[in-house]
């Protein structure tokens, strides 16, 4: 089993790990760092449950080879709350507007939304839907998720 050592920034902290070369970013986050937010919904980049942000871009971590993460920065849902522990506007909006039902897609959905709002703070509905087009949700029918993202865009406090 070939191994690789990678150093990267995870939720603002520098980290170094040594894992089998074949591991993907999702497995590393969950097994090395116990960050369970990102989840495997399909394992082949077709559902978005594993979405995290790498260098500002939303990616499917289940098909992101871990050696590629060297030197990059990774942001997961566990890293978006304020330093005082307060919820990010997206997290608040999701709870307030029932954008979370079973919650399995939620971590990935919030990260796709954050990646969108970080680059496009005032998106149209169509841009929001494109931004989350790679995140499946079976519970909500997407409506209250889109509304929550619109709410968060309007209520942002400070920088995203």
């Amino acid at each position, binding site marked *: 089993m*070939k191994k690789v050592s990678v150093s990267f920034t995870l939720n603002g902290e520098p980290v170094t790990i040594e894992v089998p070369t*074949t591991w993907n970013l999702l497995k590393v986050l969950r097994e090395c760092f116990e960050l369970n937010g990102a989840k495997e919904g399909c394992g082949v980049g077709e559902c978005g449950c594993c979405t995290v942000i790498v260098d500002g871009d*939303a*990616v499917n971590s289940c*098909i*992101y080879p871990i050696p590629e993460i060297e030197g990059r920065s990774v942001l997961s849902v566990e890293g978006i709350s304020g330093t005082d522990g307060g919820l990010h506007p997206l997290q608040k909006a999701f709870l307030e507007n029932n954008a979370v039902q079973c919650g399995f897609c939620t971590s990935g959905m919030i990260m*796709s939304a954050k990646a969108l709002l970080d680059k496009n703070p005032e998106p149209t509905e169509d841009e929001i839907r494109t*931004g989350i087009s*790679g995140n499946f949700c079976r519970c909500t029918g997407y409506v209250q998720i889109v509304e929550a993202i619109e709410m968060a865009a309007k209520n942002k406090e400070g920088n995203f």
Partner: protein
Amino acid sequence: MIDYEYKIPADLHEVFTLLKEYGEKATLVAGGTDVMVKIRNTRKAPEVLISLRRLEDLRYIRKNGGYRIGGLTTHRMLELSNLVRTELSALHDAASQVGSVQVRNVATLGGNICNAAPSADTAAPLLVLDATVVLEGPGGRRRVPIAEFFKGTYRTVKEPDEVLIEFDIPEKMGAFGSAYWKHSRRKAMELPLIGIAVSVKLSEANEIEDSRIALTVAAPTPIRAYLAEDFLRGKPFTDQVLKEAGEIASSSECCTLRTSLRCEAWYREDMIKIFVPRMAKLAAERIKSR
């Protein structure tokens, strides 16, 4: 169990060194959305993966007379480019609809074309924009017209020790309007049931000076519908003419339609007939409004 070495070369020179060292044992990987998924699904992997992801020099969209797009340009870059949207519209249509944002953030144009799926969205636009593929290998560079690039399903003329470094689109294609239709059941996360790209150049008298028509999922490789193009050349831009072009394009002289689990051949045929005219009209509108 799957095991492989993962190499991350810093530049092209290193890529070639590694390719020479590992030969058949190695596979190039760019965004990973094809290679990593295939490994997961087949539970088989090459011995060595050579990543192209750090070759930032190969990510660009430039216009200098003609258009030059680096092989590692992501679909997301194409999607967000005003230049591509206005002047290479069909390519914009296609790139914007590949998979999802997450996929488009990492998947590259070069990777999509080298994967050579018969359903590759960006292949049809590149065909109607007369793109040339620029390959670089240990022996130097060579240029292959995109229409000659695909050898068969998932097979291209690219040698294992070559890298696709650039797509060139001639300046004259800027005078064409273009459009691509991805016919699918949903509006995201899809492969096309059939893909139709059309580019068209109109005269002042609203005649078709020149046009290109390309189809995906209509043959073992992405193809041009030459007979339909020949038919259109010099004709007036009318509904009847476009309809006939659609029928020629859908005929067995232009394509070999298959029935698969995803779609039956007759439906694909019908859609070619419908969308060749629709995309021709959209392409014409676009060039007029520019």
